[in-house]
């Protein structure tokens, strides 16, 4: 059932539910943020990378003499030089290997071949142009279908690898699904490609590696969403003692999954700093960012639904082929090779499902990162929401009604899904009803019927819905790990004698406002004003170990850790208060910020208790008011919502624009509603981008198309729709403050809504599918029955 969170603190305290302004903004609005490229260390050198111009080739010779001879150049590093130190290859976060600098072959256009270290970036760039490399071209494999049917072996470096399969995986119950399909009244299917895209945060990736050759201390400043995990990987790759490695992440100009993996540039810069004994900076150019680091999606999906005579879904089958690029470098939990794709049964109640997945190596950039997404949930949600729309039309029902008929009911939670998830809580009908009302669904349907009925109409209206269910907040640590590191997260809280506090986190902000929201959680639990709480993160020497921020895990895991550690401190504060008030602990009543002896007006504030912890603590009690919690969530959280989009399609040129959009999100309790809404409007816009214009593709030779912002399109304010937002609140029953995480919902849910809307507009003209991005030529092709690939 939907409830609204009751405020328990004043705006000055700023606990959960208050839209307090962000503390971090004060530096950003003055241009005083400290992003990686803003860092200059004494004696710092600059690195530039030479990249392969071709997709697949054997490397002949590399001649770097002219580059080395250039004034200002200190060194040219090649794969061979790295190999001498055992650094030519590194592990990926999904247990594969990836070349740091190519030694044998290049396997994608843009792969790292050599690096120049120079006194300034202009010289480094000049020198890169002077390196000569001989390439013997090999067949470029550019699709996973081609990859699985060719004899050309992409990963001939891997022992035991005899074909181009990167992984295979399945979930669900095949027999049960097959039986349901055999008994179905109807079967509806969909083949669709979720195109390759890229998180493309406005700031690219970068590193400043500073290895002290005398002490062996390596301080590595980098754009990382997961500094602790990266430190461990560095220790494993470079064989450096882990205590000598300090990863520092400063302000990050957006991450969205791009800044989770370890990239070759980080490793080379660190190796170069170690060898030369000076700090080395490497900042990715936008082109490098788009062609070599962190692509996402690229899923070819086939799926079908079995439907009974009463229009109820009875089963789903899905078969997936993912294009992994040259190295399998997703960050996937080791148990789940296709991530959490098996959440693809979505918001619907049916007993049987079977999912098979296979990944193929291709001569394309590696990645497969979860771009504003929790391990492939985006692809899964898109698939079911597109398929359900088709099913509704197939059975002749309104897509909203068909969804409502098949939703999991609010009374069915916790709900065991046919692929094994236990959904924690939900009220799907509530979100649907609110979205319909917000947008005047019936009104739009009426207008659509009128406008589209004219066979000559050149402007058609379409209405698209997506009622997504997400699964976020990995893990529990029984099932979830990255490279064996269990997916818990941590918080360390210290209240100083004067009642001010410092909170240290294992998760990492990239613009989500952690300095504010995490302080609000402490404020809620302890009644200390949020403005008195400093939040620290991103420095492995000074924060507790954590797995970092991606897959919407900050609030579900790091936020829970913060609440739990605050409660630990509150328990101690209660003892201190009892001591000060000379009362029994049981006789104290707590309201945020204060203990009162029941039935009296005698009270002690949290600040008093904190002061006593250092000045006047009872005998036998340890001094201080601090603690640390490593939180291992009992389950994931399942945010959900319904998005409804109205578009108008111009049949003359294939363009479409959004006339109206309503987005109802339920992410449980909202800690800071203003920030939550910001996450949603941002995420909706990234979803719109993917549906409307944004993708990376390749020509037959493996040349990347989409290698800069002229080709990889990011919408401006002009194209971006305006959104109407709505909220329902169904708290997570197992999360200490009932929150679920919201960073990704809108990117996960909205692409299907946009695409469904355009397809809906063209239904009367016989169209049932258009793949994203739904570009004008694809609309035109669908309308005119012309195959327009790509």
């Amino acid at each position: 059932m939907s409830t609204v969170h009751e405020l328990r603190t004043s705006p000055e305290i700023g606990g959960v539910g208050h839209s307090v302004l962000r503390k971090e903004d004060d530096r950003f609005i003055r241009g005083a943020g400290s992003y990686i490229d803003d860092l200059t260390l004494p004696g710092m050198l600059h690195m530039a990378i030479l990249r392969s111009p071709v997709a697949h080739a054997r490397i002949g010779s590399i001649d770097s003499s002219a580059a080395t001879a250039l004034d200002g150049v200190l060194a040219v590093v090649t794969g061979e030089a790295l190999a001498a130190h055992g650094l030519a290859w590194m592990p990926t976060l999904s247990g594969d290997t990836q070349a740091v600098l190519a030694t044998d072959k290049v396997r994608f256009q843009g792969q790292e071949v050599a690096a120049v270290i120079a006194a300034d970036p202009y010289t480094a760039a000049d020198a890169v142009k002077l390196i000569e490399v001989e390439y013997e071209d090999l067949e470029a494999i550019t699709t996973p279908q081609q990859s699985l049917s060719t004899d050309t072996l992409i990963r001939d470096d891997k022992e035991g690898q005899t074909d181009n399969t990167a992984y295979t995986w399945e979930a669900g119950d095949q027999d049960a699904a097959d039986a349901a399909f055999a008994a179905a009244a109807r079967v509806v299917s969909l083949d669709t490609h979720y195109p390759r895209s890229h998180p493309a945060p406005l700031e690219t990736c970068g590193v400043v590696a500073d290895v002290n050759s005398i002490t062996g201390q390596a301080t590595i400043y980098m754009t990382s969403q997961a500094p602790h995990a990266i430190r461990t990987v560095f220790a494993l790759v470079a064989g450096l003692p882990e205590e000598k490695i300090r990863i520092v992440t400063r302000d990050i100009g957006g991450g969205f999954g791009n800044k989770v993996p370890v990239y070759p540039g980080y490793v080379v810069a660190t190796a170069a700093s170690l060898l030369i004994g000076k700090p080395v900076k490497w900042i990715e150019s936008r082109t490098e960012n788009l062609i070599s680091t962190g692509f996402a999606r690229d899923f070819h999906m086939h799926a079908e639904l079995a439907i009974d005579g009463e229009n109820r879904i009875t089963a789903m089958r899905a078969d997936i082929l993912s294009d992994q690029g040259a190295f399998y470098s997703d960050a996937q939990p080791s148990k789940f090779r296709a991530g959490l794709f098996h959440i693809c049964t979505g918001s619907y109640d049916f007993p049987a499902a079977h999912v098979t997945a296979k990944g193929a190596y291709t001569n394309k950039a590696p990645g497969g990162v979860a771009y504003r997404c929790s391990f492939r949930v985006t692809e899964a949600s898109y698939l079911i929401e597109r398929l359900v729309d088709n099913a509704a039309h197939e059975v002749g029902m309104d897509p909203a009604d068909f969804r409502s008929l098949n939703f999991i009911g609010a009374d069915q939670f916790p709900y065991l899904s046919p692929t094994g998830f236990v959904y924690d809580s939900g009220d799907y009908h509530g979100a649907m009803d609110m979205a319909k009302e917000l947008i005047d669904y019936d009104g739009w349907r009426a207008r659509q019927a009128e406008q589209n009925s004219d066979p000559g109409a050149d402007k058609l209206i379409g209405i698209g819905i997506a009622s997504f269910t997400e699964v976020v907040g990995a893990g529990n640590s029984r099932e979830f790990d990255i490279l064996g590191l269990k997916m818990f997260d941590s918080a360390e809280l210290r209240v100083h004698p004067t009642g001010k506090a410092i909170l240290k986190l294992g998760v990492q902000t990239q613009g989500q406002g952690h300095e504010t929201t995490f302080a609000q959680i402490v404020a809620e639990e302890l009644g200390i004003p949020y403005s008195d709480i400093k939040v620290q993160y991103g420095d492995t020497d000074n924060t507790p170990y954590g797995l970092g921020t991606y897959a919407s895990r900050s609030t579900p895991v790091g936020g829970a850790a913060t609440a739990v550690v605050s409660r630990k401190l509150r328990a101690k504060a209660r003892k201190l208060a009892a001591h000060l008030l000379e009362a029994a602990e049981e006789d104290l009543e707590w309201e945020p910020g204060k203990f009162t002896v029941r039935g009296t007006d005698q009270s002690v504030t949290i600040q008093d208790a904190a002061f006593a912890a250092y000045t006047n603590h009872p005998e036998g009690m340890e001094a201080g008011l601090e603690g640390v919690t490593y939180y291992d969530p009992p389950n994931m959280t399942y945010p959900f919502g319904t998005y409804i989009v109205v578009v108008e399609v111009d049949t003359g040129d294939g363009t479409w624009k959004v006339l109206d959009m309503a987005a109802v999100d339920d992410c449980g309790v909202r800690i800071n509603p203003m920030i939550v809404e910001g996450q949603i409007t941002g995420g909706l816009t990234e979803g719109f981008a993917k549906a409307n214009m944004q993708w990376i593709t390749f020509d037959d030779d493996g040349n990347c198309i989409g290698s800069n912002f002229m080709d990889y399109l990011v919408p401006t304010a002009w194209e971006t729709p305006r959104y109407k937002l709505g909220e329902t609140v169904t708290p997570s029953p197992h999360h200490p403050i009932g929150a679920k995480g919201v960073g990704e919902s809108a990117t996960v849910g909205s692409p299907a809504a946009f695409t469904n809307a355009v397809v809906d507009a063209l239904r009367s003209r016989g169209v049932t599918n258009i793949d994203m991005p739904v570009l004008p030529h694809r609309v035109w092709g669908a309308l005119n029955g012309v195959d327009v690939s790509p």
Partner: protein
Amino acid sequence: MYPSAFEYSAPGTLDEALSALGEAGDEGRVLAGGQSLIPMMKLGLAAPGCLIDINGLSELSYIRESNGDLAIGALARHADVAASDLVGRTNGTLAAAAPWISDPLVRNRGTVCGSVAHCDPEGDWNSVMLAVGASVVARSAAKRRKNRERVIPIADFVAGPFTNSLNPGEMVAEVRVPKYRGAAGGAYLKLERKIGDYATVGVAAHLALDAAGNVAEAGLALTSVHQHNLKVTEAEALMAGQTPSPELFAEAAEAAARSCDPESDIRGPADFKRAVVAEYTRRGFAAALKQARGEG
């Protein structure tokens, strides 16, 4: 992503600029708004040895009427044209195109003459200029006075992709757009995927009517669907003297779709682009006609 090294000079007058350009020879390149040249240099697609920066020539920042024509100096920026009342009053095609050139910040730097000189087949201005029958005033520091200025019809100026017909030592000092007697209107329709995107298809339409309301002059030119901006002379000829009507515009549209030669690429197959050329030609002339008739 940095330009290669080059010599740089920033003359203060047109004469100084012309003599610097003459002296620089083959290595010399005019730097106007820099919104095409600098990106190309950063991406390594251009590496001129010597840049002559004309941004100091404030004498060339004009947009004015001269002898009845509209004259746009080499330092008039896209934003100046977009904001110009004079342009708005006198030429519907120019006025319609200006806001859709790249983005607001690029428009604050980039120049119309620079675009014209650049001859990018995806650039919008040359289609506009071809449709309205503009001419280019080229200047140089030639020895003989009579060789120092040439007026080149735009159709002769656009010589190929990224190729104009300037001689070494010459620069574009001005573009001139003729003024029409009687009622005229124009439109520029551009299919772009977002602000800042070059045209997938661009159509410049210009229509002048005679006293009887028939077509005195039609201009039609296309962006991004040919090796260079394409003037559709067949359509222009078939419309001349005719009574404007949807059927006439449809005929022109067919001629346009036939004449162009788009490539299939990431922005769509050739047939799609042809279809949009036809659609926009119809829409463009319909809008131009409305404007010429004072209907808005």
